[in-house]
């Protein structure tokens, strides 16, 4: 009886934002009386950071500090239409809608500032710190706040913008499957190291080394949070989770967290991540949604590592100790496939 080390690899790509339904999202941006900006959406923040990312996108596009931007969302009376937060479409669809809305609002902002400074709007630039200045003449400047006040109370302008992003529905050919399925693809590759106990059949994942290509990490901390959480979910899917342990038989279905197994904090795996960024041309600042794809490569990499460790192919998920032991038994003992 022994502990066998195994190493497995998998790589994937992931479609970002489905085009097949014609699923629009809208955004509205307007300035508040004190020169801050409000982004109105009806998109849902599931904890992934939708509100944070759209806030950063709005601030960057407007050319104002992120602290001057607020996101108001998830009320169907005040936010314009959004299909929802699914299919890795939040950052892509809503982000693009916010860019368009913030672009229009920026135009109004610069035109109002131009009137105050008595210059042409095309000669103005924002410094990202809350000021608008004449290009090449840093002395001639006005704050965004003063501009907003002048626009509203003196010039009678709104500093606001509208945005919608829609990719029209793509037909699918019944005979060939031809379609324009998605907007862009994220990528990942990873190596899983694990140990298999040939007495208990238990699998312990010890380390993951990964590379995730996400277009652009719009917020690196949120990306990190997604990738670490996603890898945890991948381990959980591979080794623990099922609502029907004897599928297709429906018996013994779990009804609570005592019987629905998931790894706890103690089983969070050491994970060394490299983030690659190859911006996608139609994505906001090139960013692809990292959230959905990050669990996917973990499942097959674990299955491949189990085979490497003890020579058992577990082609049915989850890879329970029972399946590993039955596989070892069928093979007449563990058959390590060699160090990698």
């Amino acid at each position, binding site marked *: 009886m022994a502990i066998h080390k195994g*190493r497995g*690899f998998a*790589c*994937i*790509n992931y479609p970002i934002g489905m085009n*097949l339904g014609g*699923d629009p999202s809208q955004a509205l941006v307007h300035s508040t009386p004190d020169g801050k900006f409000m982004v109105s959406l*009806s*998109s*849902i*923040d*599931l904890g992934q950071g939708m509100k*944070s990312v759209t806030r950063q996108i709005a601030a960057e596009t407007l050319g104002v*500090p*992120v602290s001057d931007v607020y996101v108001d969302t998830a*009320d*169907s009376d005040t936010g314009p239409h959004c*299909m929802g*937060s699914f299919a890795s479409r939040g950052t892509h669809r809503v982000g693009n809608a916010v860019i*368009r809305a913030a672009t229009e609002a920026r135009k109004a902002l610069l035109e109002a500032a131009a009137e105050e400074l008595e210059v042409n709007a095309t000669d103005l630039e924002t410094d990202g710190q809350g000021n608008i200045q004449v290009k090449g003449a840093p002395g001639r400047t006005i704050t965004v706040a003063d501009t907003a006040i002048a626009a509203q109370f003196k010039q009678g302008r709104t500093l606001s913008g509208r945005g*919608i*992003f829609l990719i029209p529905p*793509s037909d*699918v*050919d*019944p*005979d*060939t*499957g*031809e*379609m324009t*399925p998605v907007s862009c693809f994220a990528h990942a*590759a*990873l*190596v899983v190291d694990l140990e298999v106990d040939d007495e208990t059949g238990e699998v312990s994942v010890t380390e993951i*080394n990964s*590379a995730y*290509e996400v277009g*652009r990490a719009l917020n690196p*901390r949120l990306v990190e949070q997604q990738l670490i959480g996603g890898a945890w979910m991948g381990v959980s899917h591979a080794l623990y*989770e099922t*609502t029907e342990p004897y599928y*297709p038989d429906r018996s013994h*279905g*779990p*009804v609570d967290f005592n019987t629905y197994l998931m790894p706890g904090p103690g089983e969070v795996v050491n994970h*060394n991540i490299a983030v690659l*960024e*190859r911006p996608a041309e139609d994505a906001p*600042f*090139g960013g692809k949604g990292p959230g959905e*794809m990050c*669990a*996917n490569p973990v*499942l*097959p990499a674990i*299955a491949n590592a189990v085979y490497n460790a003890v020579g058992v*192919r577990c082609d*049915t*998920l989850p890879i329970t100790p029972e399946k590993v032991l039955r596989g070892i038994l069928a093979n007449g003992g563990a058959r390590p496939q060699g160090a990698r």
Partner: protein
Amino acid sequence: MSSVEFRKDLFADERDDNLQEIGKPTRRQDILGHVTGRSPYYDDHLFDGLLHMRCVRSPHHHARIRSIDTSQAERMPGVVRVVLARDVPNNLNTLLSLINFGKDEEKLIQDTKVAYVGEPVAAIIAETEGQARDACAAVRVDYEVLPHVLDPEASLKPDAPVVNEIYPNNTFDYHDLYDHQKLRFGDVEKGFSEADHIVEGEYQMSPIEQAPIETCGAIAAPETNDRFVCYTSTQALFFSLGTTAKLLNMASSRLHFVGGTVGGGFGGKVDSIVEPLSVLGAVLTGRPVKFMWDRAEEMQVGAPRGAERWRIKDGVARDGRILARTFTGFFDAGAYTRLSSYAIIKCTGHIPGPYSIPNVASNVYCVFTNRTPATAMRGFGITGVDFAIECHMDKVAETVGLNPIELRILNAYRDGDMKPHRRLAKNTALIECCQVASQKSGWAISADAARQSSLTGGGGSRADIPESITDSVGRIGERRRTDIPTEPGMGAASRGRVAAGTQGIPIVAAAPQDEDMITDPARMGFRHAPVAPSQPGATPSSPVPPSAAPSAAPVPPQQNAPAPQPAPPQQPAAPQPPQATPDPAPAPYKPEQPFSRGVKRPGVSRFLSGSRRR
């Protein structure tokens, strides 16, 4: 411990990293509320006189409802209202009817037949949740138990019980034509015959629960203006709103939906069941009503990630190149479609994974069985097939005796390659991910594999669409009459050919409706990315290509052949962002195309064209 590094050295010449806010680790604005327990969830919107709704559920996999006796339940303490199927104004729906996909097939509350354990047949609204539970237990339902089917392949057999009468063949109807979605690219039989090895495998993805800490729920209440407010845990506000309006046959403007902090979604909060039930309760009682799944309902009645079964067959050359690959996939949708039909389309567009394979075919089935309907979960339509593909790649590597990472790099898709769904690959990075994972783990690959790049080596003949073999096997209803094979290309029915190079029009984003919404590419963080190969049929209908950012150059006139140039080799990064990008030339005037705001017509004043007056 975990670590994160950002490999800014890779693809550096395609990015401008000098942005003000993008790329910064800004702390989320709502974090303080989350960590101090003050963020409001839907369940925090408690009302005076809040009523509670619970469902009476089927104990059988499949049964006809002879009668429902609620007389005892109605007399139970605290019971305000018993809700039956006849109380639902428009009691038949399918979720994706909002995007016009599929037939209405699922009742909010059943009255004729149950098709899975847990299907609701009645609901009780009571003063307390406990009273509602007690009254549910007092409802007597007389069932005639029917034979059931739980395995998707058994469900395809001619004698299998009919799960869902709207789809009497136990499969979702694709395009009013086939009982599955086909993908056909090249000639897989020819590919297999040229191969040195055939590698086959079968893979099974388990049903998995989204497992949010906050179970699905909603609180609805009448507003004073003849409207109803609904606080909900939904992931998709207008999806749930639209579904509620349809089921309750109510103008959507009479509904005010408020979402917000969600206690975990992962795909399980799109199905829009709790919202119509709670609003229906508020309509029927005139009082605020809460409907929330308990943990057992969340796990066994709430739709999980569905089970998937996959069979893959590869024809492989001695050197590891995959010459042909076929897929046969079965999505176990459970008793109703929910979103499974859509996931199969997404999956078909994803096949064969991130690899360039000259001959590919797949048949993917959305199969109805007598189990809890399946729905979306993180990676929907992709997680299961990726598990199959990547396990299979290791079997191929073992068969040909190659390092598994090198096998992936050898077969990886690259910029300019034609994908089986007949669109060119662009912006690819699989090879670089493989190389970095190899470096980080110390799992060595050959010098040749380490030299490869996603930017080069694609395109050319790899951009061609081959002549493709099609077939008409699996027409709707055919499988019900006779047992026919499920694999692609099998069976005796007529074969067809689609000529090489055949490709339709790629779909691109609708252009900004107003020129004020068109972004300045220089501010969007892109550097001179390789120009995407032009595709036939691309429609330059706006001053700037709709994809806006990287290639501000006008789309060249259309060419007959796709002729994608391989991406130019990497060049040293330009010293400054491309501010000097020349103004995009106006798109050629196309009288046959609908005139839209923002398009400048030659010779017409800008004011009349609808452009903003400066």
